[in-house]
């Protein structure tokens, strides 16, 4: 089981990456043999911008895209900027080829400066992943500053565990039964019409 977390946290000590690490802890606790890596989009900011201009990924960005495409499941964590995810986060997903995430199990999480942003997962992130046709698990985890200080009950950890449980269940189950397929279909109607033109009247 290979799980990749994508963190769009932009500051150096990032609570967004910290939240991604909580997912890693929960995954390792549940599946000691699973691999878990965090990709930090900040490190790829220039490459992502270049890709939006020239339409192809630099080798460094392509390496990360290949990692994401090959993962069995993704954890996607974004900070909240102006009531949504940062532009860099969207630009990363813009740089992916169409349909590459089809059927991929995904857990969404977000951080924000105030709990009032907590619907960012459902109002901003979910529609994007609906478009990408990922298998997005129901539990999204939003962490406001308050959540990091609520020691004792560890409500945040409990929510992360619930999301990870869902993610593993989907990843280890059948998923949507649909995955990205990049083979050339020689037998589509259009392809067949090349060597077998419509009969002439």
């Amino acid at each position, binding site marked *: 089981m290979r799980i990749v977390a994508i963190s769009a946290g932009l500051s150096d000590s990032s609570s967004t990456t910290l939240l991604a690490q909580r997912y890693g802890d929960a995954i390792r606790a549940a599946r000691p043999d699973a691999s878990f890596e965090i990709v930090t989009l900040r490190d790829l900011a220039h490459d992502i*911008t*270049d890709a939006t*201009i*020239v*339409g*192809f990924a*630099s*080798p460094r960005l392509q390496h990360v895209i290949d990692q994401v495409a090959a993962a069995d499941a993704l954890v996607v964590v974004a900070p909240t900027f102006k009531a949504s995810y940062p532009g860099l986060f969207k630009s990363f997903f813009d740089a992916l*080829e*169409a349909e590459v995430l089809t059927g991929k199990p995904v857990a969404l999480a977000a951080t924000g400066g105030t709990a009032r942003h907590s619907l960012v997962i459902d109002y901003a992130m979910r529609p994007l992943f609906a478009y990408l046709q990922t298998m997005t698990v129901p539990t999204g985890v939003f962490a406001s500053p308050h959540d990091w200080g609520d020691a004792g009950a560890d409500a945040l950890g409990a929510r992360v565990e619930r999301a990870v449980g869902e993610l593993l269940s989907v990843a280890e189950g059948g998923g949507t039964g649909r995955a990205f397929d*990049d*083979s*050339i279909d*020689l*037998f589509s109607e*259009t*392809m*067949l*019409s*090349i*060597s*077998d*033109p*419509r009969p*002439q*009247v």
Partner: protein
Amino acid sequence: MTTMQFGLFTVGDVTPDPVDGTTPSEHERIKNTVAIAKKAEEIGLDVFATGEHHNPPFVPSSPTTTLAYIGAQTEKIILSTSTTLITTNDPVKLAEDYATLQHLVDGRMDLMLGRGNTAPVYPWFGYDGSKAVELTIEHYQLLRRLWDEDVVNWEGQFRTPLQGFTATPRPLDGVAPFVWHGSIRTPEVAELAAYYGDGYFANNIFWPKEHYIRLINFYRQRYAHYGHGSPEQAIVGLGGQFFIRKNSQDAVREFRPYFDNAPVYGHGPSLEDFTAQTPLTVGSPQEFVEKTLTFADYFGDYQRQLFLVDHAGLPTKVVLEQLDLLGEVLPTLRAEFDARRPAGVPDAPTHAARVALAGEGAPAGRQREEGGVPTGRQAEGGSVPTGRQREERAREGAGETTGSLDHERVTR
């Protein structure tokens, strides 16, 4: 005799010069294009190809007019396109315009078909852009018949039917212009080129080579599948671009402002990253030769190499200097490519060679009367299966040709 052809292809953009701030007029750009084409012949290039566009900032909306004008002022250079829009032009007009050009320049022409990349062109010409692939296939199937059959009865989805129609003039010597198909992401276009035994061109400019390798390999395999020869015998053309000076550092210094402001990749990656990641060379003539030679390593030995030189607002004077430098290394390029070329890789297509070939085989003007593939190019094996026959075979488990493609990265 030309084993491999080298030439220029131009987009025909009117782009401000980012260094001196001037912008050529349309008149200047059109006249400069002619000057560049004549220079291309002077330095010994084999091909000059112009794009086709129907919106500013581009000027070449009428390629056959420009090519005929150039043809009248040149002796040897092959006139071509990069690309002719098979989607939004009427195939009847294409058949007539390019056959007329073929007569005027005594066969010294061919053309490259493409879909174009400007979405509003489709509605401007009365077509639906979401049907681009279907338009490409139907229009090309009709164009082929208009050239290969003297009288055509035809009905399709996209054009008014034809009954008892003869496209005039008939192709010179009964041999239609050679056709290249340009595409960088559409397997159907590679399939179309393979089925008819036409050439396949990858523009090889804006993206890393990996984006082009897959479709060229697919085309080569399908070319063999349809009985035109081995995969190595398929007819492949590639684009490329360079900016060279005797001194590598001078090239980088002079080209950087043009690169940084270029319409396609400007304000994006650095010149250094882009040259490392794509076929662009900015450096010395020797660096340019070395990088160009690697193309054959990646794509197989090929027939036509076209370069984009007049772009990004470069002054015409600089473009002509670039061509002088290209002319100096051209003999080296030719010799090096010839030295590495294995026996059996076909020469680049010319009208004379194709007329000679047609003389050996079936009459070229009547190739498709039976509705099969052109008999003049058919391999000894004889009949080529239709799509539906192939489908049946595949379902029986023959599973040919696609296996080695499955693990490569898609680039749609």
